[in-house]
């Protein structure tokens, strides 16, 4: 009896790690086609981008780094494709220093090249500025106050896209932004909602890591954001809505055994614990 109990509750951690590694690697070879069931909040985010029209302005903020890459980059690329196909003008900025800058720029350059979009006419890279809350407040009056020059050092009002998107008041600010899509791995998403959505009424949707996702449901329920794409499942659903097979669809298959193995080990631990309590 004691041997069984020890087996159940004292499995060596290296055994756990090895089982996990195998359970993750093997399904990657199988490549099955998985059913999807997009949830309400993912459909909300997808429809928000789909409802953009020719000439609308999409402001993207890539506030994440390599540690959120598999969860957010697939959605980022699909959103860009959606927007570019509709001839939506895209502005890119980041609060996440060099990580956000590089993942954002590499994504947009890749999709722009694929869809033959021109820099300065169809999209503009604003870049990074420090002081997240100050940037958000500063953009409310005039984008040039925060980003006088773009990522490459040229004045932003020297580009054709600026003249296209600036409104009647000749100043680019939140009134000209039709949708803000934030890719968040940290607190900046909360700042976007609390500062920008509440004060200036900008329509926003977010793609967030699964760690942050539970915290965004209150905003969705309060209708402060129109959609949330949370974690890998959200990215997988978003890709399926857009009928694409990206990174999320390729690695989703290994989540099933991963979650199952975790539950199995928790169950084994509890079996041992409960039997021990009853026997004692």
């Amino acid at each position: 009896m004691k041997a069984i109990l020890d087996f159940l509750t004292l499995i060596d951690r290296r055994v756990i790690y090895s089982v996990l590694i195998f359970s993750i690697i093997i399904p990657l070879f199988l490549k099955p086609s998985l059913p999807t069931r997009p949830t309400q909040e993912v459909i909300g985010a997808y429809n928000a981008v789909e409802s953009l029209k020719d000439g609308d302005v999409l402001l993207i903020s890539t506030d994440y780094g390599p540690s959120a890459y598999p969860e957010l980059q697939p959605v980022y690329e699909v959103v860009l494709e959606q927007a570019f196909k509709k001839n939506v003008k895209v502005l890119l900025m980041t609060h996440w220093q060099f990580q956000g800058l590089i993942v954002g720029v590499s994504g947009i350059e890749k999709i722009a090249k694929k869809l033959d979009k021109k820099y300065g006419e169809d999209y503009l890279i604003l870049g990074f500025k420090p002081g997240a809350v100050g940037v958000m407040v500063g953009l409310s009056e005039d984008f040039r106050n925060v980003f006088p020059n773009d990522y490459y050092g040229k004045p932003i009002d020297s580009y054709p896209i600026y003249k296209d998107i600036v409104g009647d008041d000749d100043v680019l600010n939140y009134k000209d932004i039709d949708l803000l899509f934030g890719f968040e791995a940290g607190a900046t998403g909360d700042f976007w909602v609390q500062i920008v959505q509440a004060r200036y009424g900008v329509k926003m949707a977010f793609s967030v890591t699964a760690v942050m996702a539970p915290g965004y449901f209150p905003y969705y329920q309060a209708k402060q954001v129109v959609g949330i794409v949370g974690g890998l499942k959200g990215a997988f659903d978003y890709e399926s809505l857009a009928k694409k097979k990206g990174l999320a669809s390729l690695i989703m298959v290994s989540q099933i055994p991963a979650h199952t193995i975790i539950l199995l080990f928790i169950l084994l631990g509890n079996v041992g614990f409960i039997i021990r309590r009853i026997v004692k």
Partner: protein
Amino acid sequence: MIWDILGIWIAAFLTIAILSFIFGDNPIYKLAEHIFVGVSAGYGVVLALNQAIWPSIQMGLMPNQHFFIKFMTIIAIILGVLTLIRLEIFSYIFPSIVWLSRIPIAFVVGVGSGIAIVASIQGFIFPQVSATFLPILSPNYAIDLSSPLNFLNSFLLLIGPFVILLGVITALVYFYFSTEQRGVLLGIAKIGILIMMITFGASFGYTIMARFSLLISRFYFLLSDWLNLLK
């Protein structure tokens, strides 16, 4: 091309070096960890110079500006430079004027705190509290009896807003420590704890999903980009 292949091999080596930590701390892991910190710091400095400091200086030197705005921008740059006195190197060279660097930091902290207060109240408290109460006024009374599954789903939708209201109030009662929790208050707080346990369980489930997504993508990189086994 050779750089691409070399790059993938270096990336694979560093990935495996970090993963080796699960079997215990070892020199390869420490090597990778220290390279990570060094490279991050280097990138951080390059970014600060390229995207923040140099553009700030350009902003101050821009020609077509109102004199007052240009003057104020230059004052900001001077204050920014004052912040740099806080660097440890300078504390050895000019120890007596290090306190000047507190002024720009105090300014930044003050502005941040001010924005936080307004944003919190206007952006969080008002919308969230109203979203807790308002859905009660328009509940979804349609119970669908066509199949057990539909019945369960429509029942959950019906009780949902009430669960939110009950949950928020009871959980907030749990956090109320200004008086001793006894009797009715304790009972309400206990319900609050149960709601929060559901919340924590959901967060745990999502955290597992997040961490495993990342791990799976690392293995995908090793198998697909490095070893070319998944094509």
